[in-house]
């Protein structure tokens, strides 16, 4: 290596490339807020509904349309709860406020804190399904053996495009206790 010039130039190139590598590492972490941002703008994954609780929307009821709302619930990873759903489906008018409740029972012998994650199918309807009260807005803790009604109040926005006639609201109930892993 008699020639020292390329070495000096190599230093600059390798620093640039190293900087690119570190920058991409940062970009990997920047993807977390970016991803959440994209999801909340587009309403994919129902993340918007968990984060954005709607104000009470007082609007005229559109009595010409009837939307079928289906309810679904899943207990994640063997959560020892029992969920009694409201009737599997109800028909509602857009703009009309509805209140229903889920009854949850803790079947285990210790208190469990649960977060319910909502999802709307089709996801395009997510932004039109406005929840004013929901047990999914915060975690729910049930003592051992406790049973409780959990309320949900929603109104479907009148602007819901015509092609959506059925909306499925599904909840996944997840144990927030991480130590069990």
């Amino acid at each position, binding site marked *: 290596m008699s020639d020292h010039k390329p070495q000096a130039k190599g230093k600059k190139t390798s620093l640039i490339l190293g900087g690119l590598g570190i920058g991409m590492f940062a970009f990997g972490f920047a993807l977390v807020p970016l991803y*959440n941002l994209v999801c909340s703008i587009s309403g994919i994954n129902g993340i918007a509904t968990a984060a954005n609780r709607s104000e009470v929307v007082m609007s005229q009821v559109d009595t010409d349309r009837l939307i079928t709302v289906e309810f679904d619930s899943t207990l994640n990873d063997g959560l020892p709860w029992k969920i009694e759903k409201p009737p599997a489906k109800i028909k509602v008018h857009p703009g009309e406020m509805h209140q229903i409740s889920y009854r949850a029972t803790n079947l285990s012998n210790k208190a469990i804190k649960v977060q319910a994650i909502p999802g709307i199918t089709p996801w395009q309807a997510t932004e039109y399904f406005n929840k004013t009260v929901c047990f999914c807005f915060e975690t729910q803790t049930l003592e051992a053996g406790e049973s409780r009604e959990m309320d949900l109040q929603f109104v479907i926005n009148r602007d819901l495009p015509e092609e959506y006639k059925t909306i499925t609201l599904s909840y996944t109930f997840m144990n927030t206790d991480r130590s069990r892993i």
Partner: protein
Amino acid sequence: MSEATIHDDHHDHHDHKPTGIGRWLFSTNHKDIGTMYLIFALVMLFLGGASAMVLRMELFMPGIQIVDPDTYNNLLTNHALIMVFGMVMPAGAGMANWMIPMMIGAPDMALPRLNNLSFWLLPMAGTMLILSMVVSYFPGTGTPVNTGWTLYPPLSVQSGMGMDFLIFTIHILGISSILAAINIVTTIVNMRAPGMTWFKLPLFVWSWLFTGLLLIMIMPVLAGGVTMLLFDRHFGTSFFDAAGGGDPVLFQHLFWFFGHPEVYVLLLPSIGVLGLIIPTFSRKPLFAYKPLVWFMAALTALGMVVWAHHQYTIGMSLNATTYFMIGTILISIPVGMMLMSFIFTMWRGAMTFETPMLFGIAIILMFSFAGVTGVMLAVVPADLQYHDSYFVVAHFHYALIPGSVFGLYAAVFYWLPKWTGHMYNETHGKIFFWWTTLSFNLTFFPQHFSGLAGMPRRIVDYSPQFADFNYLSSVGGMLFGLSHLLFLYIIIKTVKGGEKAPANPWEGSMIGTTGLEWTLSSPPPFHSFSTPPSVK
């Protein structure tokens, strides 16, 4: 076709190699480090192959015979990680180390000490990878790593301590390959001999320029992803835990942002090798060399932005899936152009069929087949049917084994005379070629059918209706695995002795290229080109 000045006699008086283990431990010599990379890759090839053979033995007939489901999944995870990170990437880096300084007329790599570090991280990472499997046999360490190489949460958050070993393995491997990539790109940018302009570079050098850039851009993102996984596992964060406001699908995006370009990291060096071998044995200059370089650039750029075609079933919007589908299908254009330019290079050439060329032609045939199944899988409605089936397994093995592994074998046969100074036994080479390609096809061709019929991947057992296809696959798999013993034998025999190789053992190797590496003796002196050759 340029003349380079040879300084062999000039070397003699300071060609003192270090001796003993220090020569290897503290090596800053690109050839020695290249050799160590290649030996490491060869060891990993046998480890990864052994795990694959256990999988094939298990799948020989329906039912659970040899391994339990968790061990099976652990083995298939290790098979993928060993082959991708332990075998193909180090082998590619080893060849880059060996050949690129000689091809561009440089005395060594730009950053020789960094080179030493990036190699010696690998054995540590390899040990950690093996530990990730062993540790689950100790009590209290939880389940084995049973996620597959994609490490999707929530399963990867729940699996046992082996996953932590694996996460640190990926960190070390990532650092190693980023450092190696920085080194190689810096070498190509700064260390070219006078007169070695960009468009005189052999295609292999170009391919590594793009590979290096890809590695620098994608490995950190994977490292970030597995770091988040580590935090979710131990420090109470919720990057991927829905209960805490995270999203497991985010990990899939992070993984495939790395994972799809990774395919080109594995593929491009072999395309570069083909760009040398096909002209050599067709005795014609490479057809459309400059466009080929641009197609490589296009492939690199497109490859970065189509990752979510691995995730069609996660419930993306129609617009997003349409974009990823069209982008993915577009990729077939630059790849198809590369293959076309190899075919046109052969057209009316004075072809001979030595082992590297046989591999070259077989790669073009079989890799095109992977391209066809790739376009099938890119089409969303079809993919919803094929995904997670053995059709996918067949597709990516046709892409990765001919596309990258056979390319590396071709390179080994092409450069063994240069590396060792001895010719390999051509008859043995040809037997190895036919044995390995035929058994490869016997292994993976039937998997297209079992996949189309609905056999899911990554499952230890299968429905008896798939028994015949799996029987064929397993027989092929055993033959394919055993063929590598011949490969090992050929390499050892060539290293130990054999017919003396001249400086340029291939008649056509200088046609249409600068061919600086062939102006050096075989094997080349310990320090090559301490005075830069002049390229005309």
